């Protein structure tokens, strides 16, 4: 038996490898550097590896290859766009994470113990969060490029496992944060078991674990259709869980509320891009010819998701829970792009993901700033009159909410318009009608928050907006500018996406 050495195209894998190398350097810093210098060196390594990875990605953006890693990774235009969006969102989120006020000093200490008090007094910092972020980013970069089921499964776990831990790192309300981590972990592990079972049945159906092999079997039509249906159903459960689509959304409000806000922003934005990247690839490449097997179910899930997210968000009293339900509704809108199953659907989804991710990071960045003496204030009633106290921050938050609602002159409008027109072109009128109606419902609760902030009198209970650190200011400013520019003059990005949004088989 001959051993053939694997052929790897390192230039195309460079973005992922650089991020992983940065994560390993971070682990070494954690082990060997003195405690005082860790925070700055970790931050430097994290930002540097993300920026270098982005530049490495831009250098190879024109290349296309199915054999970057022995057929396990497909490098194409859409993959570049997903990776670039994830890296940009990750850089902006790391700026928020760098504001360590939100993180517990010693995650292993029991809440309320002497150990915890000591760690707070000596001003210890939880620098482990940086390598964990980088590991999660590496998994996210791999997820939308995977073109076989092993890589897809490994990437799914690689992005999930660090996020489970990061959800439990909050400095205040630590029991809530630990509970969020537990829920996220148990439900996440549950859904990945479903995912793996789906992998097994797809392999049983086609005898192959590559997307192209599965597609060839579907076209050939010789396999057992029961296996195919079970495989698509179980794999979809795993993927839809990650994006928080109804009925697999139960974790997201709790985890969004319990996790440290900076982590919530990162998770909400970057995970969504990565998971939708993978969903788009697997449905557009592997399952495209079996569309009658999955399309009706996905249309139903999409409609239920958008309506449920928008309706339940109305009754929320907590700003992080409200944003969680709004992200559920957005998952429904994004599924419309998957259902469209056309090039315009793909382009619209990529634009929507980028615009939504950027606005999400900005919105959660602002949530980190509204505090009282006990930490962040997330109760919406106590946000009333915020616009009179700090007009600039409140206006920025209102602007992000308008972007989520899809009001013209924001990136959200362009995203919603293009994704709904793609769904309409593909003939899914039901999705279009449900989408427009639930957008109207969603606009109601976004605008209610704006009214609360600007037209109600402030309550005197110590709620205030802290002066943001330089990095947080950068994130909020950059995300606001991108959201505005994409709303007013989106043509360059749309043209760029149109020129390179394609999947190769």
């Amino acid at each position, binding site marked *: 038996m001959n051993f053939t050495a694997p052929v790897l195209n390192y230039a195309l894998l460079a973005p992922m490898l650089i991020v992983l190398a940065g994560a390993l350097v971070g682990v070494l810093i954690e082990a060997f550097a003195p405690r005082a210098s860790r925070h700055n060196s970790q931050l430097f390594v994290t930002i540097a590896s993300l920026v270098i990875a982005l530049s490495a990605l831009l250098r190879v953006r024109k290349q296309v290859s199915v054999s970057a890693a022995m057929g396990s990774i497909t490098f194409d235009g859409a993959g570049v766009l997903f990776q670039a969006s994830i890296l940009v969102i990750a850089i902006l989120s790391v700026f928020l994470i760098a504001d360590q006020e939100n993180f517990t000093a010693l*995650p*292993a200490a*029991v*809440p309320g113990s002497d150990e915890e008090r000591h760690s707070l007094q000596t001003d210890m910092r939880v620098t482990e969060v940086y390598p964990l972020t980088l590991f999660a980013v590496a998994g996210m970069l791999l997820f939308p490029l995977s073109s076989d*089921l*092993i890589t897809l*499964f*490994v990437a799914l*776990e690689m992005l999930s*496992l660090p996020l*489970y*831990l990061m959800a*439990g790192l909050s400095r205040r309300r*630590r*029991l*809530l944060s*630990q*509970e*969020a*981590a*537990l*829920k996220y*972990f*148990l439900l996440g*592990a*549950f859904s*990945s*078991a*479903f995912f*793996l*079972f789906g*992998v*097994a*049945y797809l*392999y*049983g159906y086609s*005898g*192959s*674990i590559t997307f192209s092999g599965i597609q060839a079997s579907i076209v050939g039509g010789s396999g057992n259709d029961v296996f195919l249906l079970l495989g698509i159903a179980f794999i979809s459960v795993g993927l839809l869980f990650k994006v928080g689509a109804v009925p697999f959304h139960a974790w997201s*409000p*709790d985890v969004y*509320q*319990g996790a440290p806000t900076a982590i919530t922003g990162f998770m909400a934005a970057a995970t969504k891009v990565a998971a939708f990247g993978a969903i788009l690839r697997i449905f557009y490449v592997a399952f495209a010819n079996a569309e009658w097997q999955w399309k009706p179910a996905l249309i139903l899930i999409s409609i239920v998701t958008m309506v449920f997210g928008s309706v339940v968000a109305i009754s929320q009293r907590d700003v992080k829970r409200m944003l969680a339900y709004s992200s559920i509704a957005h998952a429904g809108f994004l599924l419309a792009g998957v259902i469209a199953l056309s090039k315009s659907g793909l382009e619209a989804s990529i634009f929507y993901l980028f615009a939504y991710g950027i606005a999400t990071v900005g919105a959660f960045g602002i949530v980190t700033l509204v505090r009282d003496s006990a930490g962040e204030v997330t109760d919406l009633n106590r946000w009333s009159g915020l616009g009179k106290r700090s007009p600039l921050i409140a206006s920025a938050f209102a602007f992000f909410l308008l972007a989520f609602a899809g009001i013209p002159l924001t990136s959200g409008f362009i995203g919603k318009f293009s994704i709904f027109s793609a769904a309409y072109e593909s003939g899914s009128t039901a999705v279009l009608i449900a989408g427009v109606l639930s957008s109207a419902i969603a606009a109601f609760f976004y605008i209610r928050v704006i009214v609360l902030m600007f037209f109600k009198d402030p309550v005197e209970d110590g709620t205030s907006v802290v002066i943001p650190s330089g990095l947080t200011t950068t994130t909020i400013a950059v995300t606001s500018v991108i959201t505005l520019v994409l709303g007013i003059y989106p043509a360059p990005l749309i043209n760029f996406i149109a020129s390179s949004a394609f999947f190769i088989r």
Partner: protein
Amino acid sequence: MNPYNYLYVAGLLFTIGAVGVVVRRNAIVVFMCVELMLNAANLTLVTFARINGTLDGQVVAFFTMVVAACEVVVGLAIIVTIYRSRRSASIDDASLLKR
């Protein structure tokens, strides 16, 4: 022996695991049920590798074992932290977020 019988066994194990996750209240037991589901998936993979006559399914099963081991590390860390702060690993006690 008919290899399809192993698919039925795997399906049964998967169902037991899934039902266990839903009805059991102790986080450790829930987690063990998840592991049972992963092993059911492994058995399915190996059976299909036998039926299809290719090795890919067995390779996936190896990857699954490694990933399951990583999941144990992370999962037990989270469960132990919860247990230390609350003196209970019941998932019903962890309900502060359900308001």
